[in-house]
């Protein structure tokens, strides 16, 4: 068991927007030396939804933290991400499917501010809810 926490696109986006709950979540996990897994397709998805270059830069700065483990979309895991996406029970996205797979393979909880989307699309995933923007 590896453990840790996976950031979904909503949490990465909230961090880029300097939302207090996302900033505190990252800070608390950093201080507790807990691994923060960032699926890179969730990062890309979050970046495309931000409004300013400053928000993009702030989201990307997450990758400089020592507790952060980037999870790349690779030749090996792409078929599994696609399968998770296809098997979703409701509307999902590439970034969410990648986060769901990372959660399963690393035995880690997903941190989100869109719990409604997770419960409908990937009900099997264990989520920690920072806010509810579903």
């Amino acid at each position, binding site marked *: 068991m590896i453990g840790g926490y996976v950031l979904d696109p909503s949490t990465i986006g909230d961090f880029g927007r300097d939302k207090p709950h996302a900033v*505190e979540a*990252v*800070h608390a*996990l950093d201080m507790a030396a807990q691994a923060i897994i960032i699926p890179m397709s969730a990062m890309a998805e979050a970046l495309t939804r931000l409004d300013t270059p400053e928000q993009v830069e702030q989201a990307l700065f997450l990758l*400089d933290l020592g507790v952060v483990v980037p999870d790349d979309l690779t030749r090996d895991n792409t078929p599994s991400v696609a399968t998770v996406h296809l098997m979703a029970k409701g509307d999902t996205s590439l970034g969410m499917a990648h986060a769901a797979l990372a959660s399963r393979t690393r035995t880690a909880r997903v*941190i989100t501010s869109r719990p409604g989307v997770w419960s409908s699309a990937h009900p099997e995933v264990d989520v920690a809810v920072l806010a509810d923007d579903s």
Partner: protein
Amino acid sequence: MSVKERITVTIDSEIAAQIKELAGQESTSSVVERALREMLTRQRTARARLQAMVAAHEHRDPEGFASTRAHVRRQLDLPEEQE
């Protein structure tokens, strides 16, 4: 003058080959030490920036942020007083 200490690490052979290629005429230990130094500096800088962000939120809205902190730590199953 910095004090040097020898440590032994085991790494993937593919990475070792890349380090040797990158090093060229330079010693591999210098290359690895420089890379680690850069990584540690980047991580220290990132942590300082994160702490500044938290401090700004605390300053802006002390009560609101305390409530956010308690909620986040409950959700993440972290102790209330981590620091």
